[in-house]
């Protein structure tokens, strides 16, 4: 590789190349102040090796497309500073865990979003678009529960962090279950029982171990573990009340 040599300090960056089968390739990237991991990947692709594939869009932590494994942990790379994660000026970058690899750092998100569909994690409208906006007081407990979980950007970091997803590939996973919890608490939804029924199955909320990897790594600071605990409680109560 003909890499432009910088005079200042450098990072040694190992990057996954290939698909499920592949290898790590090492690049040397100049170390800069306030540099993000995404900046490093972009530098490699623009200056050293244009064949490198990766994914990003917003660069400001909104779209959720830039997640990768950084030194073994899932992170949103556009908001992760190199200074915070590089050990001895070394980075090891790999595609997001628990998902198939398309190429290099781009993971295939299809199984992740398939689980949202299986978990019935979409709003079921109860009134026509023209109807007046539902009024739900901010202090309403259900609204507070939904609000706490609603800011998910669908980045897949929690999915990559979850060991139960790794052990039990059909487990619905933290993101889809977290979204389902917001709908179970949404007074405007047409069939909240359907949301509960969809997550009370074989590989649903009861498979969660509550070990909180998802909450530890969620870049939005959400707590899918708490949402899943809510689903466990709500589904058990619905079962005992004969509503499920």
């Amino acid at each position: 590789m003909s890499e432009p040599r910088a005079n200042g300090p450098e990072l040694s960056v190992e990057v996954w190349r290939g698909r499920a089968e592949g290898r790590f390739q090492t690049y040397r990237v100049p170390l800069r102040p306030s540099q993000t991991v995404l900046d490093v990947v972009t530098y490699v692709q623009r200056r050293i090796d244009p064949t490198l594939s990766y994914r990003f869009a917003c660069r400001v932590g909104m779209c959720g497309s830039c997640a990768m494994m950084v030194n073994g942990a899932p992170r949103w790379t556009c908001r992760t500073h190199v200074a915070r994660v590089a050990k001895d000026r070394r980075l090891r970058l790999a595609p997001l865990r628990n998902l198939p690899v398309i190429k290099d750092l781009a993971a295939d998100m299809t199984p992740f979003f398939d689980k949202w569909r299986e978990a019935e994690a979409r709003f079921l409208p109860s009134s026509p678009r023209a109807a007046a906006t539902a009024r739900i007081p901010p202090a309403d407990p259900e609204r507070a529960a939904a609000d706490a979980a609603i800011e998910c950007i669908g980045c897949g970091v929690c999915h990559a962090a979850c060991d139960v997803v790794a052990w039990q590939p059909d487990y619905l996973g933290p993101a889809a279950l977290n979204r389902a919890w917001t709908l179970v608490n949404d007074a405007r939804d047409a069939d909240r029982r359907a949301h509960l029924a969809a997550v009370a199955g074989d590989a649903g909320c009861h498979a969660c171990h509550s070990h909180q990897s998802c909450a530890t790594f969620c870049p939005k600071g959400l707590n899918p573990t708490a949402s899943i605990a809510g689903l466990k409680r709500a589904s058990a109560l619905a079962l005992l009340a004969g509503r499920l």
Partner: protein
Amino acid sequence: MDARVQGGAVVGGRRELWLFVLQRASAALLAPLVLVHLATMIYAIQGGLSAAEILARTRASVAWPLLYALFVAAASVHGAIGLRTIVREMTPWRGASLDAAAVAFALACLALGFRAVGALA
């Protein structure tokens, strides 16, 4: 959507949900029972009671055998459900044969446990 909800998803789901509820309920029973059991063991050993003296006490009461019968029932249910879950997570074994094995495990624990409780009573 309703057809799917009424279909296999929920039948399978209800079983897992019932097992979850049973697991929680048996855990709620086991938590105090384990503490009572440990405290009694420590007390009995430190007091220097012999096996014969302990048996004399348990045989004189209805409460101790009943307490341990409940303990055996809760532990059998809890252990069988927990092992079934571990097997489902760690191996590809699923389905009716696994459920039957879990039931057999629970029954074996119940039989052995009640045999021991019978000796206390």
